[in-house]
C-alpha cells in the first residue's frame, strides 16, 4: 500500500479551480516533491491529504484511510507530521516546553531530547522561542512536525525564507529523517531543493500536473540534450552562425543540441576560420530550472 494515493483530485473555490484532475502516488519511505509556482495548487493538495481541507472530487488515501473521514481523523493525525509555511510557535515557551507539550498529544512520541538534538537546538533547549533566530525557529517548527514520530511528514515550503546555510541544515535534517524510513512529501518552488532531496517530483501548474518523474529524468532531462551559450561576437549576426540558434537574449546566444561533440566541432571550427573568439562559451546539461521554466511558462 502506498503512503499516499491521489486519483483525479479536484478542488474548487467558487468558480476558481484550485486543483484539477491531479493523480499521483507516494511510496513508503520516498521523498516526493510537489514543485510549482505560487498559486499552482501545491498547498491546497497537501492540505487535502492532511485532512485540513475537504476536496470537491476524486479519490484520496493517506496511510490507507480517507483523510476527510471524521472517524479515522484522530488516528491519522497521530501518524502524520506537518510543518506549515508559517512559523507557528508560541513566543514565551522555551524550546523544551513546546516540544514536551506537543509530545503529550501523541500516543508514541519521539523522546524530546532526541528531537532537540536532531534539530540542532541542544544549546538553546531552555531558551524562549522569541529569543531564537528565524532559522532556529524554523528548525523548532520541523521539530514539532516530527515529535510524534510520524510515518508520513508533510513539509510545506520548508526552507522558504532561510539563508543558504539554514537551507543546507534543513536538507540534512530531512535526509536524516528519510534515512530512518519516514515518508516525506514536500512542496517547494526551489529546483535545487528538489534535486537535493526528492526521489520523485510532480510539477504543478495552473491546478494541474504538467510533468512528473525523477528529478534527473523529468521533462526529457536524461535525453542528452545540452545547452551551449556564448556572447555574440562584435560584427556577427545570428544568420552568420552555421547552426540553429535557439535564442539571442541581450547578446547571449543559446543553442540546444542532442549531439554536443559534432555541434561544438562545427561551432569552434567556424570561429577559428573567421578568427573570432566566443566570449563566455559554456556547455551545460539542461537544468531542472530550464525544464521547470519551460513547463510553467504558461502560468502568467
Amino acid at each position, binding site marked *: 500500500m502506498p503512503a499516499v494515493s491521489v486519483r483525479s483530485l479536484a478542488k474548487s473555490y467558487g468558480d476558481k479551480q484550485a486543483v484539477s484532475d491531479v493523480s499521483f502516488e507516494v511510496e513508503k519511505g520516498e521523498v516526493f516533491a510537489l514543485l510549482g509556482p505560487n498559486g499552482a495548487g501545491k498547498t491546497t493538495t497537501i492540505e487535502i491529504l492532511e485532512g485540513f481541507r475537504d476536496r470537491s472530487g476524486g479519490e484520496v488515501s493517506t496511510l*490507507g484511510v480517507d483523510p476527510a473521514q471524521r472517524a479515522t481523523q484522530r488516528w491519522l493525525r497521530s501518524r502524520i507530521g506537518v510543518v506549515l509555511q508559517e*512559523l507557528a510557535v508560541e513566543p514565551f515557551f522555551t524550546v523544551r516546553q513546546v516540544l514536551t507539550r*506537543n509530545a503529550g498529544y501523541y500516543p508514541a512520541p519521539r523522546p524530546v531530547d532526541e528531537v532537540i538534538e536532531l534539530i540542532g537546538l541542544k544549546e538553546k533547549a531552555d531558551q524562549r522561542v522569541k529569543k531564537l533566530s528565524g532559522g532556529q525557529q524554523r528548525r523548532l517548527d520541523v521539530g514539532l512536525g516530527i515529535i510524534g514520530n510520524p510515518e508520513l511528514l508533510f513539509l510545506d515550503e520548508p526552507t522558504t525564507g532561510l539563508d543558504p546555510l539554514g537551507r543546507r541544515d534543513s536538507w540534512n535534517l530531512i535526509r536524516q529523517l528519510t534515512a*530512518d524510513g519516514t515518508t516525506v512529501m514536500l512542496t517547494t518552488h526551489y529546483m535545487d531543493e528538489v534535486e537535493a532531496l526528492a526521489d520523485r517530483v510532480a510539477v504543478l501548474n495552473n491546478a494541474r500536473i504538467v510533468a512528473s518523474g525523477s528529478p534527473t529524468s523529468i521533462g526529457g532531462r536524461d535525453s542528452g540534450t545540452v545547452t551551449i551559450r556564448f556572447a555574440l561576437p562584435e560584427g556577427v549576426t545570428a544568420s552568420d552562425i552555421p547552426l540553429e540558434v535557439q535564442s539571442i537574449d541581450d547578446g547571449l546566444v543559446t543553442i540546444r543540441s542532442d549531439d554536443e561533440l559534432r555541434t561544438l566541432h562545427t561551432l569552434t571550427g567556424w570561429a577559428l576560420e573567421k578568427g573570432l573568439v566566443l566570449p563566455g562559451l559554456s556547455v551545460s546539461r539542461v537544468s531542472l530550472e530550464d525544464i521547470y521554466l519551460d513547463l510553467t511558462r504558461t502560468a502568467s
Partner: protein
Amino acid sequence: MTTAEPTAPRPETAAVPTSGSFQGLGDVKLIFRQFRYEQLSFWLNPVGAFFTIGLSTLLLVLLGSTAGSAEVGHGLDIRLVQYYVPGFVAFGIMSSCFNVLAISIVNRREMGLLKRLRLSPVPTWILLAAIFLSYMFIALLQMVILLVVGKFGFSVQGPVDVPAFLVTVLVGMLVFTALGLATSTVIPNVDAAGPAVSVVFFILVFLSGLYFYIAPGSGLAQFASYFPVRHLILALFASFEGGRTSPWAWGDLGVMAIWGVVGVAVAARRWQWAPRRG
C-alpha cells in the same frame, strides 16, 4: 512511558481504530494538561499578566478612593464603591473572556497556531476548551482579588446571594467568551485586533455605566440596554445589593443569553483555522 526508541519499528498500520472524538477520562486529563500549558504561557509573560489581571483592581482602587464614598443617588442610598465592586467584577469577566480572548484568537489564527492546533491528533474541542477555561480562570482570579480589595479596602459587603452571584458570573463568562470568539472572526489581522477590540470594549463599558451609575429609564440606559455589557453589570449588582429587588436578575440574564446565542452562531459560521492575512 509512552516514548519510543527512534529505531523501534512503528506499530502496524493495519488496525485502524475508528473511535470518535471523545475518549473518556483520558480526554478530560488532556484538557487539564492543556489548561496548565495555557496558564504557563500566560504567566511566562509577566508584564502582560500583570496588566490583564491588575487593570480591574487598579481602576476599582482609583475610582473607589476618589469618588467611592459618594452616594449612588437616583433614590439609592448606597455608596458608589458598593456599585463599583460588582461593576469591576463584570469588567474583569469582559476583559478576560472577551477582550483578551478575541485578541489572542486573532493572534493565534494569523500566526498559524490555530491551523497547527487543528492538525494535531488531540481533538480540537479539547484544545479550544482549555483556552476558554484558561481565560475564565483569569476572570475568576480577578473576581477574587476585587472582592478581597472591596471588603478590606472599602468595607464593601460581598454578594448577598452567593448562588445568584456565581450563576451570573458563569453566564457572563460563557456569553462573553462566545462574543469574544465571534468578534475574533470579523477582525482581519493582528494589527487591527488590539485597537478594534479595545475601542469597542471601552466605549461599551463607558456607556453601560461602569464608571458612573446610569438612572434606569434614561435615554442612555435605554441605548445601553441593547448591549449585553450593562446587563452583566446590573445582574451582578442585583446579586450584591439584594434588598431593593430580587438578587436574581432574570431579565438581564435573558438578554445576555440571547447575545451569547448570537455570538455562537456568528463564530460557528465565520470560523477559520487558517490565517486570513487580510
